[in-house]
């Protein structure tokens, strides 16, 4: 009897352990179908800004480094075609050893010549070639290819962000011979070393890739192929997941979609969630009175009850966490307890609003002062956040009208025209969680066209430079905290609303994909597999 019981328990235990093990063993085959709410304008990574390019095209390429696909913070660089690297003691030279046997889809071997040509196109583009990320690599003095399997970057000054910048998902490794013949060839063609080869792009409809049988990372990819469906309508994307015409979408769904899909599909659907490296900001035009007065700007921040908004707005919009200058939960982010000490982040909202009223009075702003808040004509999450902001400011005696401007005309008619607005919604989205990229926006306007507060703050500029050049993490953290305090508290140059929140739906058959805070990351699909 005892033997039988032990045997039974052993079988049960074996079964219990076997289920997760079996579920975690990657299976080969299948086609991953996913929707993409946008479409690539061209096929050239270094030229474009939209995730509509990354989602269908990234699986065709490798980059020198990539962000670790298993890292939920999206901050840890690992080698992609770089096997290893060394950093000189003066932090001015980075030398990378490349993997051998990496082949382009046409069979030619990839060497350092290709890496150099790809990076030269980004950092030192010839005349007439647009490279939107050239500014990210101002630190680079030279790119060298001393032998076919070594690539070397020489820097002008030390940079704490350099490795992360090489993990940019945009920096596809192109073929040097093709670039030498035609710098624009990659705008309309695909030729990479990635896990999937190109099959077809039917404009406005879909993109198809199939497994690269000669992929250098033996055993990968697991999928036979993938199919990206370009679907603009959000309701159609949700219907596609529900009807199992699409297995996932890599940008985000809303909390309402999550609830509806869970109710309809039960255990056939699962979700991954993360803070999102995107945030709506309030740009306060410093060239306009009374917004040139920091007391008024601080009052605008003090009026906001961010902590309660985090609870309420997260139920209806793609926002959630209260944030400073870095994505909550990532290595450089300020912990909530410290954040609560900054202006506008105090947990006691009554005290905060009393201070806001006092500051407004002191600055000579009368009760019922009216101004217009300009907003971009994009419903989610601009609309709910604008309503929230206006309501919050009303509670400290300000009368705010909203003016919604069509999305395509917004920058040209509002943000880029300092005479056109007082206070306006602004937007920042990062392709990798890295302070250099995330806080560049806030340095003085004469150094950065994208600063729509139109202010000059040399202290902030200096702090930016210091944190960027700090190679010691603790030192960099210190500068970042100082930067944050000056930007959001002392000067209140810009206001943060709430961090966006990513909700990725996945059919229960989809495995091997880890969400990160950026919808530009982790799209090579080499680790993804489908259960039968």
């Amino acid at each position: 009897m005892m033997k039988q019981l032990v045997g039974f328990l052993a079988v049960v235990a074996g079964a219990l352990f076997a289920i997760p093990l079996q579920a975690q063993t990657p299976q080969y085959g299948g086609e991953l179908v996913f929707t993409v709410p946008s479409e690539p304008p061209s096929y050239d990574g270094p030229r474009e800004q939209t995730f509509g390019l990354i989602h269908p095209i990234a699986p065709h390429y490798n980059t020198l480094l990539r962000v670790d696909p298993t890292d939920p913070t999206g901050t840890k660089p690992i080698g992609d075609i770089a096997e290893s690297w060394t950093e000189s003691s003066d932090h001015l030279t980075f030398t990378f050893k490349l993997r051998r046997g990496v082949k382009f889809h046409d069979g030619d071997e990839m060497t350092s010549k290709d890496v150099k040509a790809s990076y030269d196109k980004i950092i030192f583009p010839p005349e007439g070639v647009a490279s939107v990320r050239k500014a990210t690599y101002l630190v680079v003095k030279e790119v060298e290819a001393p032998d076919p399997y070594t690539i070397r970057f020489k820097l002008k000054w030390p940079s704490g962000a350099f490795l992360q910048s090489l993990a940019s998902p945009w920096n596809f490794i192109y073929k040097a011979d093709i670039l030498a013949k035609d710098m624009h060839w990659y705008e309309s063609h695909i030729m990479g070393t990635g896990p999937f080869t190109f099959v077809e792009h039917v404009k406005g409809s879909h993109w198809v890739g199939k497994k690269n049988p000669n992929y250098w990372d033996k055993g990968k990819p697991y999928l036979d192929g993938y199919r990206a469906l370009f679907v603009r309508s959000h309701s159609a994307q949700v219907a596609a997941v529900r009807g199992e015409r699409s297995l996932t979408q890599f940008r985000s769904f809303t909390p309402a979609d999550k609830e509806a899909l869970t109710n309809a599909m039960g255990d056939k659907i699962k979700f991954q969630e993360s803070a999102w490296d995107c945030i709506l900001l309030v740009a306060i035009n410093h060239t306009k009175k009374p917004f040139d007065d920091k007391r008024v700007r601080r009052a605008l921040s003090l009026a906001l009850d961010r902590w309660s908004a985090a609870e309420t707005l997260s139920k209806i919009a793609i926002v959630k966490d209260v944030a400073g200058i870095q994505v909550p939960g990532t290595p450089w982010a300020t912990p909530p307890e410290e954040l609560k000490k900054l202006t506008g982040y105090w947990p006691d909202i009554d005290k905060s609003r009393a201070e806001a009223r006092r500051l407004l009075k002191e600055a000579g702003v009368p009760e019922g002062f009216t101004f217009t808040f300009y907003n971009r004509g994009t419903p989610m999450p601009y609309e709910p956040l604008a309503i929230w902001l206006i309501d919050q400011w009303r509670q400290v005696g300000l009368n705010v009208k909203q003016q919604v401007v069509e999305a395509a005309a917004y920058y040209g008619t509002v943000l880029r025209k300092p005479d056109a607005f007082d206070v306006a919604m602004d937007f920042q989205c990062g392709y990798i969680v890295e302070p250099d990229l995330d806080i560049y926006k806030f340095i003085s306007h004469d150094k950065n066209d994208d600063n729509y507060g139109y202010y000059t703050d040399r202290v902030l500029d200096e702090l930016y430079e210091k944190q960027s050049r700090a190679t010691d993490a603790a030192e960099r953290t210190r500068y970042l905290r100082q930067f944050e305090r000056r930007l959001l508290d002392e000067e209140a140059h810009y206001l943060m609303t709430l961090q966006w929140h990513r909700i990725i739906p996945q059919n229960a058959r989809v495995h091997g994909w880890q969400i990160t805070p950026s919808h530009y990351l982790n799209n090579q699909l080499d680790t993804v597999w489908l259960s039968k």
Partner: protein
Amino acid sequence: MTHYILKRFLLMFPTLFGVAVLIFLLLRVVPGDIVEVRFMAQGQYSSEAVMAIERAKLGLDKPLWQQFTTWMWGLLHLDFGVSMWTGAPITEELKLRFELSLQLAIMATVVATLLAIPLGILAAVKQDTWIDYAVRVFSIAGLAMPSFWLGILMILAMLIIFKWLPPMVFTSFWVNPWENLAQLIWPALAVGYRYSAVATRMMRSAMLEVLREDYIRTARAKGLWLKLILSRHALKNAMLPVITVIGLEFAFLMGGLVVTEQVFSLNGLGMLFVEAISHRDYTLTQALVLIVASVFIFVNFATDIAYAWLDPRIRYR
């Protein structure tokens, strides 16, 4: 008749030229440009220098008259140019979408015509009976329900009841008719129903008017069969306004099904139109406006000829 057709045909060209000038100028008046949309809409950093390179590449730094003459010169050679957004030839952008939109427009027109003409005649002949009331309710319901809303209901019904969703990728009818119809039949029904509602009401009122004419009374007095009166004497005359409605609706369907295309995730001209405008893709928008205008003008031309065929008085006027 030949003189009439030739006159109507030649009138098409100045109309198209007027449309071309108008759309070229209107697009330049609308705020925002393609470079801003391309480099700034994603919330990432873009310098003025990069945007200047792109503007120069697209020819947006040239004076307006030069942009216009370049475009017109291309048009004279039947060259629409390339899309500013994708860099692909506009003919390539249009090819697939045109096939889908044309097929959908034809299918919706067939659905509408098959419903509208018999129902309109029936309602007129059986005026003020329960049949007339039923047809009127059916057609007013069609007018009241936007086709995209009906589309949403259809999709929800398919998802909830049959756990099935129509295919999301367009397959040409000539490649796989079943897959093609499985995708397009639903939007054709949704659009065709609304379309039929307009035509049914028009058919009914036109038929009622014709049935009160003296020559119909005379035909009845002669003892002709009702079927013969309707088909030979009444229908031809009552069809005139219905043909106008069907023609105009058909032209509208070629580029105006924006929301329905979104709901059913169709890769048609309507969606392309919206994207071209929201991207400020001048060349593509101009080409699309010209195509839709050409369809309207051609349909009007065909309607005029049909009028002349149906009513000899028109061709001799």
